[in-house]
């Protein structure tokens, strides 16, 4: 029996045609693909979603390039989402990650898409998760998501990726400490790239020390804001996984084979330990809550009307009412209106 006959048209189209996939990604980015996303959702879940994050200039794009090459050598197909920041002033962006990915040109097993954050915080865009789902449904074995250059609090990627790689480079000096303290917690694998540069060994040592210190705190994090997993079995998440540190030279591929091995080990760990299910449940319930919030807000604003909303804003500006009471009043009004 033909599989294609049972596929929704959009899934058949993006598996067949790169142009159709590119077009769909644009519609997703422009919030014009709700029905298509609904149709393709159940056809995903096969790809391994790998996040690559780290400070600007650590070599994320070059690393993604050499990882993709190594996956291609294993005959795995690779979809790449490369995120760069939007200008907070003009809303425009220069997306330059492809410059470092030219080796992948001409390979039909690779699809690269650049995207801007479009005002979303956290190093990714609001739609990055749905774009990754589209690449997943399109049948790519590996989906690599490269975040915009990240500092301390850009940890959103961890809620999308199954395996999060945090890239460091030697020679970032003492301020690397600050970066590590923020972003280290989301790393499933740490990479010290540019390992041929002076100072690589001391960066590795510093990271290792940090990991040893941080191990206790790491589990607390999962009950905190970042990953509020409700039911971690005792001795559950992270007791078995020790974040490895891999040294790479992305520009010539050194260490990339080892990195891929660690990624495969992490995936096996996620599946065997049940951690993947726990993480997925936590991030999906957070996502549903966020989407619900967006929907409710939109509906509420529709209901009270832009003019009335503006009038309330004016009253807040004039300090006749405080912002919190204003919000409570708007909610009360919209609930009243709904009653007959």
């Amino acid at each position, binding site marked *: 029996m033909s599989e294609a006959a049972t596929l929704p048209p959009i899934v058949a189209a993006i598996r067949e045609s790169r142009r159709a996939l590119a077009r769909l990604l644009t519609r997703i980015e422009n919030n014009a693909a709700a029905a298509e996303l609904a149709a393709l959702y159940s056809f995903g879940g096969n790809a391994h979603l790998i996040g690559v994050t780290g400070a600007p200039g650590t070599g994320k794009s070059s690393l993604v390039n050499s990882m993709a090459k190594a996956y291609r050598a294993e005959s795995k197909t690779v979809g790449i989402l490369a995120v760069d920041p939007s200008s907070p002033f003009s809303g425009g962006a220069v*997306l330059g990650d492809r410059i470092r990915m030219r080796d992948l040109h001409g390979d039909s097993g690779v699809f690269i898409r650049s995207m801007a954050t479009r005002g979303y915080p956290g190093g990714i865009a609001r739609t990055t998760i749905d774009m990754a789902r589209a690449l997943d449904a399109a049948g790519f074995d590996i989906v690599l998501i490269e975040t915009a250059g990240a500092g301390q609090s850009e940890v959103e990627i961890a809620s999308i990726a199954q395996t999060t790689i945090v890239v460091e480079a030697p020679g970032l000096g003492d301020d690397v400490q600050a970066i590590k303290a923020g972003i280290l917690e989301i790393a499933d694998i740490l990479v010290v790239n540019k390992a041929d540069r002076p100072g690589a060994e001391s960066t590795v040592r510093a990271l290792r020390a940090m990991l040893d210190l941080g191990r206790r705190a790491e589990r607390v994090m999962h009950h905190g804001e970042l990953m509020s997993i409700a039911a971690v079995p005792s001795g559950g998440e992270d007791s078995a996984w020790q974040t490895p540190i891999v040294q790479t030279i992305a520009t010539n591929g050194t260490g990339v084979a080892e990195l891929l091995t660690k990624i495969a080990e992490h995936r096996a760990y996620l599946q065997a330990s049940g951690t993947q299910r726990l993480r997925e449940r936590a991030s999906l319930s957070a996502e549903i809550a966020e989407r619900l919030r967006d929907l409710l807000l939109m509906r509420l604003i529709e209901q009270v009307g832009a003019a009335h909303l503006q009038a309330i804003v004016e009253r807040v500006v004039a300090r006749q009412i405080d912002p919190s009471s204003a919000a409570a009043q708007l909610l009360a009004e919209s609930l009243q209106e709904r009653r007959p």
Partner: protein
Amino acid sequence: MAERKIRVLIAKPGLDGHDRGAKVVARALRDAGMEVIYTGLRQTPEMIVEAALQEDVDVIGLSILSGAHMALVPRILELMKAHNLNDVKVVLGGIVPDEDIPILKQMGVSGIFGPGSDTQQIIEHIRKVVSLE
């Protein structure tokens, strides 16, 4: 909800290494609110068209200073046609002799901007030719 953004690929085909103009234009388009995919130096026509397809851009901006435009541009247009990128506009910058301009426009290049062009002209041209539904 996020508005639709004009997406522009900026590429430098051919072998000359002068990318200052391309970078100035990329920056100007960014400041005009567009999303610019910058691919860098020494791109082959195949690389440019592949990137344009994957990135689903509205416009391909080419910077050519080597004098090879009469070889590179037709090849790019031909590949675009082969990949059904019929609605993608091509804008050319760099050094293009006057006598080549009508020929290139005849081939389908939508705008040609030589040395001394104002980036504002390029922005206005792109906004005019890209119809955002």
